[in-house]
């Protein structure tokens, strides 16, 4: 507690937090990282990752998964955060699917790039594809490849536009040990689906008490307190 007060007063939160973490005082380290996160200009991705480590050490695995996911929004290619997230989810009993769909892989690959870089890549692929289609009219195979490049470029541009202007419903992590999805926002309504801690959902509507969410296996209403928004 004294460390936390000192850090708040002196503004040297991350160093204090790291010392607390190394001393095994993970709750205090988490509070110190939280305070450091509120400082202007803080390296949010790194701090959220460190907070994830604190939550992991405290045994709050769903919370750790939430922090790692928040860190990955800010550091999309961070291998450490991905590794720790996988580990937290494995300990929560959330087995990763054996096969990942190609579309999901493509989305993951494009999301790993910075928006500016993705736009430049899309424009370059588009230019090559269009010129290929124009110049290689007599070579069918080459023209087909150029057309594929063009499609790839347009898909990348589409994903960028989706990320930038149409991000879709926000993602959330289940923090409670188990939450029930119900057809109506009332506790008396029977559960239609139960989700475990660490699972992710898309939040379609949200109020202080209830959230309407969408999961891979269905959708429904659940109490907002059991969810943590990723963004």
């Amino acid at each position: 507690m004294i460390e936390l007060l000192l850090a708040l007063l002196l503004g040297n939160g991350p160093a204090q937090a790291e010392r607390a973490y190394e001393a095994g005082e993970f709750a205090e380290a988490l509070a110190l990282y939280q305070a450091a996160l509120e400082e202007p200009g803080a390296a949010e991705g790194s701090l959220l990752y460190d907070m994830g480590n604190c939550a992991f050490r405290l045994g709050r695995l769903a919370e750790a998964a939430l922090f790692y996911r928040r860190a990955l929004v800010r550091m999309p290619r961070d291998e450490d955060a991905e590794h720790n997230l996988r580990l937290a989810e494995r300990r929560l009993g959330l087995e990763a699917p054996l096969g990942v769909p190609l579309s999901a892989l493509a989305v993951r690959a494009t999301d790993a790039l910075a928006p500016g870089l993705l736009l430049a890549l899309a424009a370059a692929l588009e230019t090559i594809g269009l010129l290929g289609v124009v110049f290689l009219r007599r070579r069918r195979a080459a023209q087909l490849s150029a057309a594929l490049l063009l499609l790839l470029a347009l898909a990348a541009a589409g994903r960028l536009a989706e990320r930038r202007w149409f991000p879709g419903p926000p993602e959330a992590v289940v923090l409670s040990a188990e939450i029930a999805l119900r057809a109506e926002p009332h506790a008396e309504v029977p559960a239609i689906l139960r989700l475990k801690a660490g699972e992710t959902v898309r939040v379609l509507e949200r109020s202080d008490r209830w959230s309407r969410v969408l999961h891979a296996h269905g959708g429904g209403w659940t109490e907002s307190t059991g969810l943590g928004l990723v963004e």
Partner: protein
Amino acid sequence: MKRALLLLFFASAAAAQEVAVLGPDPEVVRLGEEAAVTLVLDGAPEDATLLSVPGVDGLDIVPEAPRRSSFQSLERGRLVRGASVSWRVALVPRRAGEFDVPPFELHAAGRSLRSAPLRLEVLATGAGSGEHAFVEVSAPREEYFVQEPVRLLLRIGVEKGFLEAGLLPLSRLNLDVPVHLRARWLRGLPGAAAIGEEADAAAGGAGKTFAEDGAPVHATRVLEAERDGRSYLVLECERTLLPLRSGDLRLPGPVLGFAYATRFREDLFRGRVPEDARDAVVHGAPLRLCILPLPEEGRPPEWGGAVGRFTARAEADPRRLEAGSSLRLALVIEGEGNLESFEAPGLQGLAGFHVLGKIEEKSRARRQVVYDLAPLGVDVKEAPGIAFPCFDTSPPAGYRVLQTEPIPLEVLPRAGGAGVAAIAGGETARRALPGLDIRALKPIGAAPHERTQAGPSAALFIGALLVPWVLALCVLLLLRRRALQRSDPHAARARRAAAAFLRRVRRPGADVSGAFAEFLAARLKCKAAAVIAPRLGERLEAVGVPAELAARAAALLDGLVAARYGGAEPERGAEAARGLVGELEAAFLSHGSAA
């Protein structure tokens, strides 16, 4: 309003460097109620203490623990910071009347301070109800050590017949037993802190409810007892205080308030209505405890402040594991003592293990510390016993070190033969075991590849995607034009002829007339020999050459042919032909585009 008053008092205290007194609030109370006074000392000096509490007959004066606070305010555009220390003092009357409270004595910044005297007026309530209810507080012993929890037992008794026939419900609260216990000191007072309040309050579970300082609480136990030939329903609950310093600890008597009536009438709509409702209070006896200091003698250097009567044991899970993977070694401490406030053993530098961290669970009756340990090699055969030093209050009281039993372990080599030699003993949780544990913290100040920009603007996005299409369209148009040009053999022949003409006339002694004739033949789509004919001017006009230019071309060709066959060569014939070819090309092109 209250805030404004507080600020006013803060300001007055700052100006006078004296004790500000807020209250009593309210200035007039009924017997069974309590008033409060707040003593405020500006500047919050470290040595600020409440030296003495005045004694007033028939009035319990109960100070609470001091509270320190800091505040900020804007004065003439400047941010001014300040701090203060305050004491809330409860005034609990035991009889009706007017009370003059002498000044409180405080010590701060090396000097003594006195507050202003106070006056409290207490109105009488109903009498003659003392035999119907009682309240008492007790402790198992009279002597305790500093930091040794004092389990207080509160007992509230209400005569059964009185409860059913005479007791009235308390307003706004739906209680099983409508009585109101006033004992704010149970939440802390100078020299003692309340601990485990939530646990104490929840321990009652489904017990009957009564009111404690305005809030409903459950009794831990409900009994029936006989006292002076009367049958009482007795509610029991426990509260815990942790003494913080040695000396006398005086606990004021609790006060029990309730309302009752002796006569009732039946009302058609409101049911049983009291006709002589009145308030009543019952006072419990105060309690005095002796708090003993903890001895310096025999205190182990690693003692973490544990005081009480404890047992300690250790559990490990799993006991069979791969080198590099982690196990959970739990130290479980149970018993009567300050389980929630001492510092648990840290296990730093445990030989043969990498200490990844520890997680603690605290409750009133149990403290569990779970260490996350990773054995460094297959030669680790056991989890060593954990030493837990504590001050044991059971007689003869003294410092003791409880030792848990070692737990045998079986550490298997890692699959693939990879060792964990890289993780040296005694290192901290900053380094993680590869693959089996989370990765380490990020270095301070590092912001690796963090995404900061929101993304491209709409104009940039559209522009970047449109430019390739515009470029491709331009290229396509260029290629189409070239293809169209290539598809016309006569035009190609004409272009070749113009180029050939220019090449030939550059050479010295060139046949200018032949070259010019071939150029015209290409444009007229005929053989070169067919160009030299009488109506050349008209034929050129027919393919779009202006009449004047056609006439000049015909005249030049005549002149060149004549010169070739011995006639007079026109002056500077080659240059004139070159110039004329340029004019003719322009004429053909403009005609072609117009066509």
